[in-house]
């Protein structure tokens, strides 16, 4: 033990911890050693430029440290790393600063959510944002907090919306210039979704965009009666930002009530959509609705992934989107134009798109009194777990479910078919024995070509997955799943390179950083955070 301990001897704060300017956040790729936002950069590619870990040496990865949260909630956060200091969230809303080399704690800030705070699917948090010396966290009682990154002291605490009205915040905030942008969850409980921007210095609100238009605003006519008032369309996953157009992109959740559209006739804009907002004013510039008049709970709260690619021979600024509804999309992120869409799992609720990219519904594939088989499952082909795009391979990497379906009955919660019925909603912390058969669902990590949305390779798991995906410039893909393994794949072939049994479900996305020239990769699993690296050379 002593010998191993000595191997850990590294001075953590090798580089000075300078203020994190917005320019640094915007160009996170220029600082491979750091991880400055939820998915690494504001393009959400979850791609690390680090190259020390490769397909050739990944088999040598070793556990460096474990940090155990004092929480039995799912650990869904992706950490930030700034110059040797790692910041993460202990669910529901404690911020922790750790030494990124040893995993030892610098400080902890604890927020006590209001007793009336309610979330649909666990008292979870997915991460932080940073600007200057200030960390930002949304809370399950719908507050936005600013916390001193050096001391862990509270700087300001702003109420974004009322927790007594079932608003909550579970995702990582987005820093854009001098503002912090967050959205509110609670779509299953009859909120009216919000995206709002706050002054990073003072916490004062700068703008607010409702994801459901008010009477007199375009789109309100897509809701019958007063259904718009409690129509849901929550926002509960990270947004993206494109500096060239100054647009910020957010995915919105399902309309409410979830499985019964009889009281909310119409398309129900802007539920199940991506909205592109002017980052300075919150003005809607364009939207694309993935699932009009959703009665199948197909939240479109996936992380928008932005990429500059050659698409059909032309350079194109696109947005890649693997949706819960079983369809994968390529959109033009400047105009919102639908470029390509395709099922990536079994889909039976639609059978094509019109020329504008609107899905063609299959008659009868809606909730009925006697129940209807719908594919994919209510939790979708994928859900909230963050995917990855590697500019090096040009492939889009998604962890998702295969072989799923749901019996949907009007007004009732859906009944799964072809899925391990022991699973609970939105994942668990601990491992459970799993005995599947060929009829049941299973998880995969697949690499897709954005030009065709065809898979290039697949890595298959026995059980389903709630894990995210990380790619690196070393051509390694990291992911994990419900079975409690964290693993490395070859980014070009999908070959399994290495695995570690982490003893709890992976409900988060991996990330990578380096300190003192040594590359680390972390994953949250169960209630703990694990850090791996290659052995140190003596």
């Amino acid at each position, binding site marked *: 033990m002593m010998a191993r*301990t*000595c191997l*850990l*001897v*590294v*001075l*953590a*704060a090798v580089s*000075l*911890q300078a203020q994190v300017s917005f320019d640094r956040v915007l160009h996170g790729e220029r600082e491979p050693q750091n991880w400055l936002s939820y998915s690494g950069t504001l393009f959400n590619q979850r791609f690390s430029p680090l190259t020390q870990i490769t397909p050739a040496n990944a088999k040598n990865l070793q556990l460096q440290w474990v940090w155990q949260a004092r929480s039995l909630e799912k650990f869904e956060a992706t950490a930030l790393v700034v110059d*040797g*200091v790692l910041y993460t969230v202990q669910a529901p809303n404690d911020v922790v*600063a750790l*030494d990124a*080399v*040893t995993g*030892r*704690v*610098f*400080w902890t800030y604890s927020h006590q959510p209001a007793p009336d705070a309610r979330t649909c699917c666990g008292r979870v948090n997915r991460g932080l944002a940073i600007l200057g010396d200030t960390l930002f966290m949304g809370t399950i009682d719908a507050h936005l907090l600013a916390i*001193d990154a*050096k*001391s862990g*002291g509270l*700087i*300001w*605490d*702003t*109420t974004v919306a009322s927790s007594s009205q079932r608003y909550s915040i579970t995702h990582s905030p987005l820093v854009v210039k001098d503002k912090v942008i967050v959205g509110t969850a609670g779509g299953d409980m009859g909120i009216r979704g919000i995206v709002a921007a706050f002054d990073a210095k*003072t*916490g*004062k609100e700068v703008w607010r965009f409702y994801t459901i238009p008010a009477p007199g605003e375009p789109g309100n006519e897509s809701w019958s009666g007063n259904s718009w008032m409690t129509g849901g369309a929550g926002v509960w996953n990270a947004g993206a930002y494109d500096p060239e157009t100054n647009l910020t992109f957010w995915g919105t959740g399902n309309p409410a009530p979830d499985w019964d559209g009889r009281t909310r006739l119409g398309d129900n804009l802007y539920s199940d959509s991506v909205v592109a907002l002017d980052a300075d004013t919150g003005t809607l510039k364009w939207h694309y609705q993935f699932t009009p008049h959703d009665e199948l709970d197909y939240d479109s709260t996936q992380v928008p992934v932005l990429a500059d690619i050659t698409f059909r021979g032309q350079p194109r600024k696109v947005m890649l989107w693997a949706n819960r509804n079983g369809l994968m999309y390529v959109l033009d992120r400047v105009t919102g134009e639908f470029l390509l869409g395709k099922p990536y799992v079994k889909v039976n609720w639609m059978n094509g798109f019109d020329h504008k990219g609107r899905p063609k519904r299959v008659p009868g594939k809606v909730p009925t009194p006697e129940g209807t088989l719908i594919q994919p499952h209510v939790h979708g082909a994928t859900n909230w777990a963050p995917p990855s795009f590697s500019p090096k391979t040009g492939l889009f990497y998604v962890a998702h479910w295969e072989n799923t379906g749901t019996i949907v009955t009007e007004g009732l919660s859906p009944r799964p078919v072809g899925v391990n019925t022991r699973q609970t909603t939105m994942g668990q912390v601990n491992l459970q024995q799993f005995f599947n058969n060929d009829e049941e669902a299973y998880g995969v990590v697949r690499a897709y070509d954005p030009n065709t949305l065809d898979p290039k390779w697949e890595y298959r798991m026995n059980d389903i997955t709630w894990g995210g995906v990380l790619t690196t410039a070393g051509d390694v893909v990291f992911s994990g799943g419900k079975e409690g393994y964290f693993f490395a794949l070859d980014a070009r072939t999908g070959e399994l390179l290495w695995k570690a049994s982490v003893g709890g479900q992976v409900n988060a996305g991996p990330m990578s950083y380096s300190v003192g020239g040594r590359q680390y990769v972390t994953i949250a699993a169960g209630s703990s955070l694990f850090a791996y690296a290659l052995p140190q050379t003596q």
Partner: protein
Amino acid sequence: MRRSSAAIILVAIGLHAAGTSLSAQHATAFDIEDGGRAFRNTCANCHGPDGDQIAGIDLGRGQFRRPLTDQELVGIIRKGIPNTPMPATNVSEAQAVKIVAYLRSAAESRKSVAVAGDAPRGKMIFDGKGDCSTCHRVNGVGSRQGPDLSRVGQLRRTIELEQSLLDPAAEVLPANRFYHVTTKDGVAVTGRLLNHDTFTVQILDAKEQLRSFVKTDLKDYGFAPTPMPSYKGRLNPQETADVVSYLVSLKGRTNP
């Protein structure tokens, strides 16, 4: 409001010093310390750390709305006062006796604070002659080296603040301790101790950098004396009282 209704509020009648103090006379120092802890856990949410946040009552100075014996106070702590915000609690008789002993002891020690302070003057001294922001931070302004004082008026009693000014080394809270390390190549670093264990130590150094060291990398390491200077003789009694009043006034920032 939730906090107000959840804790003990001593509501009595008349403003007067308390009566005889049998508990305090027989209490040990440990009893008084235990009583202080129980007071902070059970009573301070409503009464404040100094026991003076309810109008007409100053528990820390033995001022109630009518004279109360120790036994009467014990009864109020345990059973509350009907038809008032002061609720009954699950505090045991022994704990209540210790709380009373603590309050009596605090009232005795307060007699040394004779000069009334002026908070605005105290702020001027804090920012000027005292040079306090070189080490301390208030509402986002100043250094992080020393404790952040933005809410110190909610957290510490007047007597403790006065003692920290005049005799800072007498009692240093664990969260405010300093630590020094010297690396094997001779670099000395001193900072506020954030955490340490058998193998590592974490500090906030003088440049406000979060630093973590592995002890086997160090030539020496250990606790350092508090860098907080004594203001005894540097501030006169009136100036000391002014600064204490200013610190007492620091209750945190209002949210936007």
